[in-house]
């Protein structure tokens, strides 16, 4: 048995170290370490409650708006209010801008460059991949970065700047949109749509989101050359390299639901999807707990619900190997992310693919690209529906003593904030980020987290000290380690 320690693991957000036990060219077990701790949950204690809106976005520079939204919702919950329709639409727009930018960044800058590596030099698609995705040089990576930059001008208008905007408030947005500005915002979203339709999909977005099975996907695929559009090129290499067998997920997928509409509905549904039963169950947030057995944090009182969570470093704890706690739902491991969102929301293509091959490198990336096709048209609708004669913000006071829960979906999956306020000050604040779920360590029962299990069986080629299959699997989750360890 050989042991490999892989790090610094780059092209993920934040710090990651992966420890692998390898037998006969295959990973036999994996331990995931998030080796950095900043202590936001400690920093927030005793702060004026509204100041959370300044601190929490700075947990993460890639999903900063997601953190703001979760915090604003936790405060709104504590106040017992909901933002006015305009405030909800603007919040959706800002969150969608960040999430879509994240999907784009992930595909073009984080995930695809690995296929330009010399290890794949003999593959028929390699020249095209190299041309488009080579790190810091690829033609399409550069175009995608330009498209991303233009997309983020939406957050200049709506949020002042990005990351770390403060315009997202519990009762709306501090930035009202003027009538004339709507057309400018719409024009920017259409620019982004043009990039997606020309370079990524080589097809209209509506055509992509209407694909309702893997058979239909193969039919669509066959209508053009295998490298026509980056999506087709991805499918070409994914099917050929059997990415649909790589990095299996736990079979249970959770989504907090996302993009509420003013009528109280959700654009993407909330719930848990189970692969064995092929059914969606309601999400019971009371059954969430965080187990700190293998984290360098106190595990006093055992696994705790986040409303009662504890964050106290204990760096010399035996058997601990990461700063990440192990979140569990009903005591069980779950996976969260775009794949989970689309499974819970019952998108027929993603359901069909997951029923065939489960959660894998292939289905995770597929779900992310599908979200680009589904969300961008929704953004156009939210902009058109902004009512310039209605308020964006309503004044409302925060009670001196209250508790609140704020849920949202970041690009990478379910994000939850739990706040307790005493005498106007924060008396407890706990955060469970998407990657906390996906990259969790073992729990008290010794059950590995989703990625730890997904890595078992990954191939390690002779001489590899940073196995390329491990890189594909890890990056397929699009981890955000700074959120994880906050």
């Amino acid at each position, binding site marked *: 048995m050989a042991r490999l320690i892989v790090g610094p693991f780059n092209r993920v957000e934040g710090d990651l170290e992966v420890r692998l036990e390898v037998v006969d060219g295959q990973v036999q077990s994996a331990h995931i370490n998030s080796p950095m701790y900043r202590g936001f949950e400690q920093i927030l204690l005793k702060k004026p409650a509204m100041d959370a809106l300044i601190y929490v976005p700075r947990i993460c520079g890639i999903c900063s708006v997601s953190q703001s939204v979760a915090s604003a919702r936790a405060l709104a919950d504590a106040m017992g209010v909901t933002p006015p329709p305009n405030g909800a639409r603007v919040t959706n727009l800002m969150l969608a801008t960040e999430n879509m930018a994240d999907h784009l960044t992930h595909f073009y800058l984080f995930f695809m460059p690995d296929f330009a590596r010399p290890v794949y030099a003999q593959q028929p698609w390699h020249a095209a991949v190299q041309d488009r995705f080579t790190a810091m040089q690829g033609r399409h990576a550069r175009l995608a970065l330009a498209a991303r930059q233009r997309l983020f001008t939406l957050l200049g208008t709506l949020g*002042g*700047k990005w990351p770390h905007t403060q315009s997202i408030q519990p009762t709306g947005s501090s930035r009202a949109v003027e009538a004339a500005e709507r057309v400018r915002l719409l024009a920017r979203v259409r620019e982004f749509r043009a990039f997606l339709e020309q370079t990524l999909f080589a097809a209209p977005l509506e055509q992509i989101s209407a694909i309702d099975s893997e058979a239909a996907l193969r039919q669509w695929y066959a209508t053009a050359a295998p490298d026509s559009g980056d999506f087709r090129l991805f499918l070409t290499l994914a099917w050929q390299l059997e990415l649909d067998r790589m990095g299996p997920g736990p079979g249970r997928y959770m989504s907090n639901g996302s993009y509420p509409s003013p009528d109280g509905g959700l654009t993407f549904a909330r719930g848990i999807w189970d692969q064995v039963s092929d059914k969606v169950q309601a999400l019971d947030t009371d059954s969430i707990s965080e187990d700190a057995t293998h984290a360098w944090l106190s595990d006093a009182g055992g696994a705790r619900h986040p409303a009662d969570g504890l964050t106290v470093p204990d760096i010399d704890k035996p058997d601990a190997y990461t700063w990440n706690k192990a979140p569990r739902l009903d005591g069980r491991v779950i996976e969260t992310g775009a794949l989970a969102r689309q499974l819970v929301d019952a998108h027929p293509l993603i359901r069909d693919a997951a029923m065939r091959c489960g959660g894998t490198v292939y289905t995770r990336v597929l779900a992310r690209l599908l979200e680009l096709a589904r969300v961008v048209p929704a953004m156009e609708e939210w902009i058109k529906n902004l009512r310039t004669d209605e308020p964006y913000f309503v004044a409302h006071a925060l009670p001196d003593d209250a508790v609140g829960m704020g849920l949202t979906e970041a690009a990478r999956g379910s994000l939850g904030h739990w706040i307790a306020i005493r005498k106007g000050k924060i008396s407890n604040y706990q955060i469970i980020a998407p990657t906390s779920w996906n990259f969790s360590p073992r729990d008290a029962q010794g059950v590995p987290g989703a990625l730890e299990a997904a890595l078992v069986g990954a191939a390690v080629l002779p001489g590899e000290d940073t196995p390329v299959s491990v890189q594909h699997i890890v990056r397929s989750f699009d981890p955000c380690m700074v959120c994880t360890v906050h």
Partner: protein
Amino acid sequence: MASETFSRKTPAFNVLWLQSGGCGGCSMSLLCADTPDFFGALSDADINMLWHPSLSIESGADAVRIMQACIDGRIPLHALCVEGSMLRGPNGTGRFHILAGTGKPMIEWVQALAAVAHYTVAVGTCAAYGGITAAGGNPTDACGLQYEGDQIGGLLGAAYRSGTGLPVINVAGCPTHPNWVLETLMALAADLFDASQMDALGRPRFYADHLVHHGCTRNEYYEFKASAEKPSDLGCMMENMGCKGTQVHADCNTRLWNGDGSCTRGGYACISCTEPGFEEPGHSFHVTPKIAGIPIGLPTDMPKAWFVALASLSKSATPKRVRENATADHLKILPAIRKTRLK
């Protein structure tokens, strides 16, 4: 394959970028630089990104080999960029951040690399002064590269000078503006930057010689002390909403963010993110602290008595249009069209 070798353009200005106790937001902000071709802009400026945690192909052992080659002098390290605070805890061990795959605290890597760097650049307020990570009880004993708050020292010490004789260049901001970073690196690569271009807190003067107040779209409201009372109001945010723009060194309202934004244009206060200690204002961020109804943080260079006199005078002279619009989220009264052919 144990190691892949990637060709490097030479000669070029080699930049190595590390992230420690921060959020990665300064890197993400950088990718929003206003250019149709970000990587092209770097190479046009002769900047070679030797390794960056979000952008480079090299992972794991390959990345460590690059850092070690810089330390050993096999690759010239022109600029060491550090993003995020330096985590010295617990008890000075640096174990709150071990560089993955190396078993060695990040602060030791930074010290070794800073010793060979021609220039050392703190990207963002975390790396410059400690920043948000040093807030509250500062659980990780976070500090900046050469400052702890406004006290010189930090991880590298007051006496530290990089290979070219400069102290750490503090491109402060939380996050820092993409063009502050890009222009600093471009000036360094072109050999157009020296000590005279740094302010008293080590910030590049090209952006720190300005105040956030300059170019603020709410200046007319400021003149008349017509003040916003809640988020989304159009009025000046200095009197009630905690805005520090009249005192803060940065050009945010003349060099806009993400196309056309700024904090004040987004409807919220400047919280002085380019200044040491912004993370602990000593009051709620969104409320202006006052004594006897007068804000305690007065505009830079303005004696208190003058401010009080001018404020009461201008308040009494406030036009109805300005007064009413100040507490609305859209213009209620439009500027009158009185005559054409203005003289």
